């Protein structure tokens, strides 16, 4: 499936199987991973992804069609994790197979830029589970779209 919202791990290897099944001289893949929060006192170990599924899938399919048309892509992936994704894991993979490298780069860039701003997916920070309440605890919250910590 070119478009996927899933709770299972995402890999470039799996994207490769799809993207290399079709002809095209250039394959570009982007993987976005959950980053460690470097703010002092942060205890964030994962992000929890939430989705409004029906409009999200509709929008992802519209992006797929647009990329085929605009960049001549013969194959695409637009995959996003849902639920809890730990630091270091891949939260999103987008990629395109195109005749030439310029279109393939532009397509992948277009897909991730559009995905981030136009697909109803949200992330919320999740802290380390604590057994005894510590003196001061960082308060995990929803990451806004403008967060500097998203890739």
């Amino acid at each position, binding site marked *: 499936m070119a478009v996927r919202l899933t709770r299972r791990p995402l890999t470039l290897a799996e994207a490769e199987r799809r993207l290399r099944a079709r002809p095209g001289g250039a394959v570009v893949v982007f993987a*976005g991973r959950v980053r460690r929060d470097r703010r002092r006192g942060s205890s964030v170990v994962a992000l929890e*992804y*939430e989705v*409004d599924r*029906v*409009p999200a899938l*509709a929008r992802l399919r519209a992006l797929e069609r647009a990329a085929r048309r605009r960049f001549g892509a013969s194959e695409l992936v637009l995959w*996003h994790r849902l639920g809890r994704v730990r630091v270091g894991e891949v*939260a*999103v993979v987008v990629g395109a197979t195109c005749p030439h490298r310029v279109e393939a780069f532009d397509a992948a860039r277009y897909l*991730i830029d559009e*995905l*981030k*701003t*136009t*697909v*109803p*997916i*949200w*992330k*919320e920070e999740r802290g380390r589970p604590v057994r005894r309440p510590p003196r001061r605890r960082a308060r995990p*919250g*929803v*990451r*806004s*779209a*403008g*967060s500097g910590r*998203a*890739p």
Partner: protein
Amino acid sequence: MPRSVRVRLFATARLAVGRAVLPWPVPEHGLRARELVAALEQAYPRLAPTLRGSRFLRNDRYLRDLDETLRPGDEFAVHPPYGGG
């Protein structure tokens, strides 16, 4: 047929209200999207800033404008700014 719309709240909207789904009564004369948003703002003052930055959907379609009239049984989704990736 319920005499209410089903308000679905995501992300910061959900956190501000404390729940993901909120049934909202539809008065006899009907309910415009604009009226629902104003009523939500009044009922949940913490929701106000989020509502101002949100997009709204009726039955999984983005609203063209807030003059659309909601009918009993409709779903009304509140989408704060997206943050995937």
